[in-house]
């Protein structure tokens, strides 16, 4: 009964989405307020029904309703409650439902927090979001229904993949999807700008907080995924340039370009067409990413052939969205215009260069991700693209981008002077070069790459300090704290996010340059030395979990005789799927992680054990968190709310005047 209710709710949501995606757009084109006003109630009603559907599926999971095919494939009665809930988005159908839930959540948020927007704009934005929702809801209802019944019902479920039974994996997909789907709002704003031909600083101010929020979630989502891979896969790697990861990274790169381009559009009215194009690309890559990961193309191109309905639907949807919006762009972009002029040396140029570098990087990732799929689909052979390709491309493309991150915020808009910039940044440069040359020596070994990476990170920090300092000097005010308070939140957000990038770069550089790893055979009582730490294998015992049994090793770690930690790596066997799983033991520190994982038993009481020392690895995710916090600060900037309030006050006054007359 409950699953049928869910299905019915989805069907109703589809009808509302159709309403939301057509009538308000027609109304906006023809200037009919009553049609435009349908957008908000339709969007809110759609949210209610999608939420009901999601609730129904969750209910089926919690109550172990194995007469629902999707529940039977992704859950089990022995699964702990939190993972039964996470199981809702553990497979293809449920993650589509999560996607739609996120979309309707964003749409709902737009409909609520948009009282200051003109009616025709909001009708168009919600209309476009409605159309996207139509695509997803019909994809779900016609090809991937999560509520399909399994008759007769299964005795028990096939269980959730043990890898996904982890707190990180509970949070990762919702975060990531919040980001992916959030770019649909930026996309909807861009399309509405093309439709109305109105794209100005006000437009940019409306769409900026939405875009930044989406970017913030995407940043956190990717970081969570990377962190999960690090501790759960048992290999100690934090990024594999795997197609699944690339699928989330491409929209991030494009989104990063977009938030910078939007800044220029708001401040200078420039880069208009470019901004619109980036918004289209960011969303297109989000769609591509969702489908790449969830359609099974990556595991096998031939999954398409076994279920052609899904494949064809996906391709058609991508073609309609990307092709349609690019066609609209070609047709209407001239009405939007290019925007203000600027000189060769100016902040605009620096930002444009960064934008181009980010887009090229996204293109390089796209090439490396899709090329093997294409070749395979065409039957031209199988190959894979090695991680060194991505690494070389990123070092070379991102090095100038990171350098410009230091220069851009200090350069003047419209026209800057290189000699002046050089003078202002000379100390930042000298300090970062000297420190970067000396710092690797403290690690015991100097390598050019370590020095170079640290140079870029230090340069970003030093130039950010310089920027803040010179900004404070220009601010009138008696005391330093007053001056500090006079700066806007979005300015601090920018600085914080840039420092986050620096922290991230430190993490990557140190791990790449100084990580140590050893695979050894350890019998009980044996000790292995690595990176100054001694790992002693003290014993093994058996442990029983809720739905698994495990062998747990005990290792005592010492450094120079002093105790550092006791670590308990596990090898788990999950009861239902009988899969072995390595559960690594990690000792986290500010400047290093110790990482121990059990391989397999060899002979009596001896195991192959992998021990690793990972310097500064947590800085990688710490940097991402700082970037996201920077985004949060920027979104909380007063000017977005002040503008909103001013507008409502004007409306109130106008309404009052109308009433009085």
């Amino acid at each position, binding site marked *: 009964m409950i699953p049928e209710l869910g299905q019915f709710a989805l069907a109703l949501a589809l009808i509302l989405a159709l309403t939301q995606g057509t009538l308000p757009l027609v109304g906006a084109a023809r200037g009919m307020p009553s049609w435009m006003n349908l957008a908000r109630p339709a969007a809110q009603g759609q949210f209610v029904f999608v939420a009901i559907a999601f609730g129904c599926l969750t209910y089926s999971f919690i109550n172990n309703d194995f007469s629902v095919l999707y529940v039977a494939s992704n859950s089990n009665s022995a699964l702990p409650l939190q993972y039964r809930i996470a199981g809702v988005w553990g497979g293809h159908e449920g993650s589509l439902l999560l996607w739609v839930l996120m979309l309707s959540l964003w749409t709902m948020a737009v409909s609520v927090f948009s009282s200051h927007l003109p009616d025709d704009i909001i009708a168009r934005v919600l209309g476009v979001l409605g159309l996207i929702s139509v695509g997803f809801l019909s994809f779900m209802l016609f090809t991937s229904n999560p509520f399909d019944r399994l008759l007769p019902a299964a005795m028990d479920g096939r269980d959730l993949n043990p890898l996904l039974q982890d707190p990180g994996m509970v949070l990762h997909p919702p975060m990531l999807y919040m980001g992916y789907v959030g770019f649909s709002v930026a996309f909807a704003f861009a399309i509405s700008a093309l439709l109305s031909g109105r794209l100005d600083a006000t437009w940019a101010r409306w769409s900026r907080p939405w875009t930044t929020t989406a970017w913030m979630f995407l940043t956190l989502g990717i970081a969570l995924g990377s962190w999960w891979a690090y501790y759960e896969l048992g290999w100690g790697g934090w990024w594999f340039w795997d197609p699944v990861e690339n699928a989330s990274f491409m929209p991030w790169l494009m989104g990063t370009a977009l938030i910078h381009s939007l800044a220029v559009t708001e401040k200078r009215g420039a880069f208009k067409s470019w901004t619109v194009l980036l918004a289209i690309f960011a969303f297109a890559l989000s769609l591509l990413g969702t489908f790449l990961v969830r359609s099974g193309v990556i595991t096998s191109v031939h999954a398409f052939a076994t279920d052609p309905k899904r494949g064809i639907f996906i391709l058609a949807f991508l073609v309609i969205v990307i092709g349609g919006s690019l066609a609209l762009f070609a047709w209407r972009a001239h009405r939007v215009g290019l925007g203000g002029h600027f000189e060769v040396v100016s902040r605009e140029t620096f930002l444009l260069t960064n934008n181009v570098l980010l887009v090229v990087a996204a293109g390089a990732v796209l090439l490396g991700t899709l090329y093997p799929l294409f070749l395979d689909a065409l039957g031209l052979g199988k190959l894979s693209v090695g991680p060194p390709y991505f690494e*070389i491309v990123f070092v070379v493309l991102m090095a100038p981008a990171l350098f410009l991150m230091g220069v851009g915020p200090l350069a003047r808009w419209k026209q800057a002077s290189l000699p002046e910039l050089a003078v202002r940044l000379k100390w930042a440069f000298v300090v970062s070069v000297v420190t970067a040359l000396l710092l690797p020596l403290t690690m015991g070994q100097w390598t050019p790459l370590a020095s170079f990476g640290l140079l870029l990170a230090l340069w970003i920090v030093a130039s950010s300090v310089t920027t803040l300092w010179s900004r404070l000097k220009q601010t009138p005010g008696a005391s330093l704290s007053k001056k500090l308070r006079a700066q806007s939140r979005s300015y601090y957000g920018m600085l914080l996010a840039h420092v986050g990038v620096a922290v991230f770069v430190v993490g990557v550089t140190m791990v790449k340059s100084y990580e140590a790893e050893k695979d050894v055979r350890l019998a009980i009582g044996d000790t292995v030395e690595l990176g100054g730490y001694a790992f002693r294998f003290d014993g093994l015992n058996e442990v029983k979990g809720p739905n698994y049994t495990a062998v747990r090793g005990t290792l005592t770690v010492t450094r120079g005789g002093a105790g550092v930690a006791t670590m308990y790596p596990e090898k788990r066997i999950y009861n239902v799927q009988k899969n*072995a799983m390595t559960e690594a033991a990690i000792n986290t520190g500010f400047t290093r992680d110790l990482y121990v994982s059990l391989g397999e038993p060899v002979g009596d009481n001896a195991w192959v054990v992998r021990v690793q020392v990972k310097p500064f690895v947590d800085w990688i995710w710490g940097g991402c968190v700082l970037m996201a916090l920077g985004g949060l600060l920027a979104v909380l900037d007063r000017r977005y709310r002040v503008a909103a309030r001013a507008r409502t006050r004007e409306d109130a006054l106008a309404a009052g005047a109308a009433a009085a007359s």
Partner: protein
Amino acid sequence: MKPRHRRITLIVAGVAGLAVAAALVLSAFQQNLVFFFTPSQVASNEAPQGRAFRVGGMVEVGSVKRQADGVTVHFTVTDTAKSISVAYKGVLPDLFREGKGVVTQGRLENGLFVASEVLAKHDENYMPPEAADAMKKAQKTNQKAVSTIVNVPSKSGVTTQ
């Protein structure tokens, strides 16, 4: 410089920069393509010498042998027609098992495939598509081979008699 000249310089610099970036990306791309070969293809010397590539198939039952150091493993990957000996030093993935599909990446050294990576995915029923493909191909050629073997003796039988 006049503004127009400046703009031209900017455009030229931009295009040149993009061209360099594209050239770099493509050459790095070319160098890092890792091709996939089946054990049969390796046996007929189609795989490159001195360049990394991937081999996939099934881990032959009873072929996994740990060396005395406890860390190096030798095993045989087969596509049912031909097989190839693989050496790998380190911890094997959780789902690496005899009789299951596997994909390894490495180089040929004197007929031994020295693997730097062993990939086995985290799903009991999952066979890496490359491995499945290798087996299928081999089975097809096997059938051909079987039919020729069936034909050949009858002919040779005639001639020797």
